[in-house]
């Protein structure tokens, strides 16, 4: 009962887009699909939906090879959003629902529910091309979930939405996950991935470079981050093999209060140094507002793994 990709390969012409991709996404999991632009995310999603076929390898859903028949049961939000431009939104949602086998009445009921939840109001009576991009995206998301799919494939569902709509979408995400639906989605917003996903994978140039739970991916780089806020001086850090000047690429700002100046710094814990020792010295040099030993953010992990040294 899961989505499986087994040594999947795909080339377009001479260009190998996906290379020996292995993935297993258990049923009921919210799975983040990460990778830089052009890594092959959309291609992989299209292969799962049988829009294009792998050159070799297998893709199965619930032990069955994916085909149009399985794809029909999935919910899909393509990267290139598209609705019939001159069709009234309400009719359009109904059309797609009935195409997936829902009765007119049942479709209308669900459309009513989701339209209200997504605060569409009078927009459903308008033609699609009269709607803003963000609103069209909400419509397409509703279309993707109307037939209550067991597997949802969402290509960048959050891109282009304002913060209010992002929250609406997130709450829908959580509800769908609670109902035990499997969700595979891609995003470049790491905070969304951290917040919503159980596990994730990162692909780069068609190859899998990381795969696992959010926590395990974060520890993958072996880095630990110290976040320190202090009223006083930071000069003592020079005594550890840390170069204050070099740290400037990390957060290092001064906050003016009424009476005090808080200095904040965030840096990689150097190998072989006990964080407790740093804390002890820090106490001697000022008033500690915050001292934290943590994993790097997913954003940093992503940048480290995908390339670009930081």
């Amino acid at each position, binding site marked *: 009962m899961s989505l499986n990709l087994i040594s999947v390969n795909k080339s377009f012409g001479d260009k190998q887009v996906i290379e020996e991709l292995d993935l297993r996404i258990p049923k009921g999991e919210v799975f983040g699909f990460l990778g830089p632009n052009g890594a092959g995310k959309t291609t992989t999603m299209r292969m799962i*939906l*049988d*829009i*294009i*076929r792998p050159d070799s390898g297998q893709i199965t859903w619930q032990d069955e090879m994916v085909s*149009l028949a399985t*794809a*029909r049961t*999935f919910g*899909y939000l*393509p990267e*290139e*959003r*598209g*609705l*019939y*431009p*001159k*069709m009234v939104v309400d009719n359009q949602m109904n*059309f*797609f629902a*009935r*195409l*997936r*086998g829902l009765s007119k009445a049942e479709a209308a009921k669900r459309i009513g529910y989701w339209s209200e939840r997504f605060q569409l109001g009078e927009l459903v009576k308008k033609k699609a091309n009269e709607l803003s991009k963000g609103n069209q995206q909400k419509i*397409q998301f509703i*279309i993707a979930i109307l037939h209550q799919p067991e597997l949802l494939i969402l290509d960048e569902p959050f891109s282009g939405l304002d913060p209010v709509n992002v929250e609406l979408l997130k709450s829908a995400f959580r509800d769908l996950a609670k109902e035990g639906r499997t969700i595979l989605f891609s995003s470049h917003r790491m905070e969304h991935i951290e917040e919503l996903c159980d596990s994730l994978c990162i692909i780069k140039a068609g190859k899998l470079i990381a795969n696992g739970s959010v926590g395990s991916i974060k520890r993958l780089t072996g880095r630990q981050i110290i976040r320190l806020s202090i009223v006083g001086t930071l000069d003592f850090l020079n005594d550890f093999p840390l170069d204050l000047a070099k740290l400037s690429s990390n957060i290092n700002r001064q906050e003016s209060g009424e009476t005090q100046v808080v200095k904040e710094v965030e840096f990689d814990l150097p190998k072989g140094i006990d964080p407790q020792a740093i804390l002890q010295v820090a106490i001697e040099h000022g008033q500690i507002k915050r001292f934290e030993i943590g994993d790097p953010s997913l954003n940093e992990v992503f940048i480290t793994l995908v390339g670009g040294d930081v």
Partner: protein
Amino acid sequence: MELLVLIQREYGDRVRNKTFIVSTILGLIAILALSFAPAIMDKIKSADKSQITILEQTGQVTTYLDEQLQNKLLNGERQFSFQTVVANSTDWADQKKVLIEKLVAGETSAVLEIAPPGAPDSVVWHSKKIDLGGDATKINVILQQMTTQQRIKASGLSQTQLTTIFTPLDFDMQVEGLKASSKEEQTQNVTLVYFLLFMLYFSLIVYGMYVANGVVEEKSSRVMEMMIATVKPTTMMTAKILGIGAVGLTQYFIWIGTGLGLLTLKGKGISLIPGITFQVTTIEPLYLIYFGIFFILGFLLYASMYAGIGAMVSRPEDTNQAVGPMTFLIVAAFMVAMMSLYSPDNPWIVGLSYVPFFTPMVLFARIVLTDVSTLGVLLGILDLVLATLLLMWIAGKMYRVGVLMYGKVSWRHMMRLVRER
């Protein structure tokens, strides 16, 4: 079920479309205008009445012309009316002057001077316009005839001999082996074929374009990706073609229904070409059945080509250019069909009538106008069906891969994708 939902969308979307409503109404206006055309023509034709004043010495010529020139206008009135002015050599010049003044003032259409004094064999036609094969020619023919008879009579032949000389030959046409047995029937068939072929030509171009535009719209709006993850491309294409076909039929039902309604109301035939009246009751029903078959198959054949071409285009503004060759093909088929109206048994035309692209128009024309064996008809339908199926299959493939191609699409690229998906 899916097919039904899809057809519903294609159909519903289009019949509510402004373009559709406007073109249907314009068509209705054209039909109304056409059916009232004879009445309107009558009004216009009344202006063609000619009032001719004849200046002569005896008054006999006027009587003769009045008897011989019985030409009627469309509204049943006589075209010519004659007025005679008798004059002799003394007052001829004065009378002539008065009459010419009347002519210039517009009180008479023409003044005919017959055998003025001193010139017994001359006739002068006074008119305000240069006459090209009109009234003057008709009158000239009659006068010529009159003079010939008088001259023969003067040479001493009797009336009986004269009658014998002038008895016309009994020339009778009998056509064998053809469905149309009389000239009238054949003329009516040609009119029918002409009319139906034009309808087919118009439909292929207009509704074919609808199909291509529909596909391009799905591609350019990127809705295609969602669609192909849901339904088979062949289902999609079939639905599009059938839906748009149904739109076309709706339009024709409205138009033809109105046309037939008006015909029964007026109880008169409709006159498409002046002088040839078209009677609904005398149309051979078998022709209409054949027309239905060729219309549907022809539409399917061309529509699937239009759909395939649409799949290769990404931007709506490129559609017109891409369908250019198709339009050319349809025009060519129409031209060949027009030629077949005059020589349906020309070997070239017979051959071309079995080329699928031409079959719907050319073979249909031949069936009505000449003797095509049942086997020939079936063969034509069969090759049309096979070609349609093949083209629909190819178009379906092109449709399937077309979605992934944006920008410039080469045939080679397309062929490769069709093979490997």
